[in-house]
């Protein structure tokens, strides 16, 4: 659910709150006639402590009525906070991976799963900083979250790559910490250097190291049902159709090499 593409959110309490964007919804309608459409949201802010946006969940429930997607996902993060009135910082900020956060997110995941009867996944976040002295690392947090709430994992390989490249970590060791038997979807993307960091910018082809991770992780994820390449629309003209096709081709080759089980995400 990319903002500005498929709907306009007029804000909590507004009626109607969500205004559909005609071109985007018409495009989805057309695609949905031929293949499953799987939404990947950015708007839920599931870790916001000051409120849980149940209107957003209801909007996703309406979309499930419409598109009958086999699963849906959002991010393990927050972007809504309340310093003085509600702010939307426009970026997915890392949650402190503590027991308090785990309780909060577990109960909300369970609520989403009760309301929308298909698997719900959360994506591992990209970090340019992390709160010090946390109770869990992210892999252990996802293990416990899956155990308590049945949350699935959308494992973004580029996010792991970015985090490790910026912090000096080993991506395979990091990935091994996650509950790989909960992975339903994998993400691949490209980035760029900026300000002394490597960014998850979705701005071009994926580094070879990320494709190596894809090859390595696919046979370790028994429930994986999809691999998605992420590219911001504004970069499409720079990347071009041919390079994009080559990226998708490499993903298909990796899929064919490992032939994961068919797309049946466990409920």
């Amino acid at each position: 659910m990319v903002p500005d593409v498929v709907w306009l959110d007029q804000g909590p309490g507004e009626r109607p709150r969500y205004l559909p964007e005609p071109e985007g919804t018409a495009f989805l309608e057309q695609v949905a006639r031929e293949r499953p459409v799987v939404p990947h949201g950015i708007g839920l802010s599931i870790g916001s402590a000051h409120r849980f946006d149940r209107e957003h969940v209801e909007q996703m429930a309406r979309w499930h009525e419409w598109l009958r997607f086999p699963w849906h996902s959002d991010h393990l993060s927050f972007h809504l906070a309340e310093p003085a009135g509600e702010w939307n910082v426009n970026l997915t900020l890392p949650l402190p991976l503590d027991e308090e956060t785990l309780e909060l997110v577990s109960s909300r995941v369970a609520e989403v799963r009760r309301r929308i009867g298909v698997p719900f996944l959360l994506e591992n976040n990209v970090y340019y900083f992390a709160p010090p002295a946390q109770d869990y690392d992210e892999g252990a947090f996802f293990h416990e979250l899956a155990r308590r709430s049945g949350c699935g994992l959308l494992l973004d390989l580029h996010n792991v790559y970015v985090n490790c490249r910026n912090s000096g970590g080993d991506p395979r060791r990091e990935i091994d910490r996650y509950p790989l038997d909960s992975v339903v979807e994998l993400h691949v993307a490209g980035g760029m250097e900026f300000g002394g960091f490597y960014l998850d910018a979705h701005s071009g082809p994926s580094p070879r190291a990320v494709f190596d991770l894809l090859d390595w992780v696919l046979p370790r994820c028994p429930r994986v049902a999809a691999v998605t390449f992420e590219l911001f629309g504004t970069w499409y003209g720079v990347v071009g159709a041919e390079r994009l096709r080559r990226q998708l081709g490499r993903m298909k080759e990796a899929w064919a090499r490992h032939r994961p089980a068919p797309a049946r995400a466990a409920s």
Partner: protein
Amino acid sequence: MSLRAYQAGLARLVAEPGFPSRLRDRGSAALPRGLEPRERERLLRLASEPGVALTATLVASFRLGKVLKALPLTCTLIGKDRLRLELRAFWRRHPPTSFFTFDEAADFAGHLARRARAVPGLLDVLTLERALLELRRPGAGGRPAEARSIRLRHDPRSLLPSLVAGRRPRRLRRRTCRVTVRLGADGAPSFAAQAGGRGV
């Protein structure tokens, strides 16, 4: 309550200009009550983290991108230096509240409109780009409006062609006129002077 206060503090670190340096200078005194010692310590440490500064830059660049996308003629007219100053002033008073281009651009246009007298033609360009924003905003039926009628104080032919070409206009001709603004099927805007005026 503590997590709520921590998230509010982190949001301020990445979206409130000047807050990280205040926190570094004043320490805990710059933080709100309700934080546990661990949260307080985290925020104090994060205030000096390069990754937090980078995130603040990303937040600012997202906000800037929305303004550039939705108000290109306004940005060209006021120029880079003034845009930088106005954004700084706007961001100090208006924290980010929405993902959506429309909301951010409409709020910034409102901010500029209160200062528009300082730049000849700015009020007209803002009127025009606000009309385009409204045209692009879906209505309750899910469809954008088809056309809008606006009143300008300068001849649009002395104002718009150079702005559309990415240049500031050299000389503006004062002339009150009504202009109808439309969006084509491809989303491209067109303007037509009313009451027998020539198309623009």
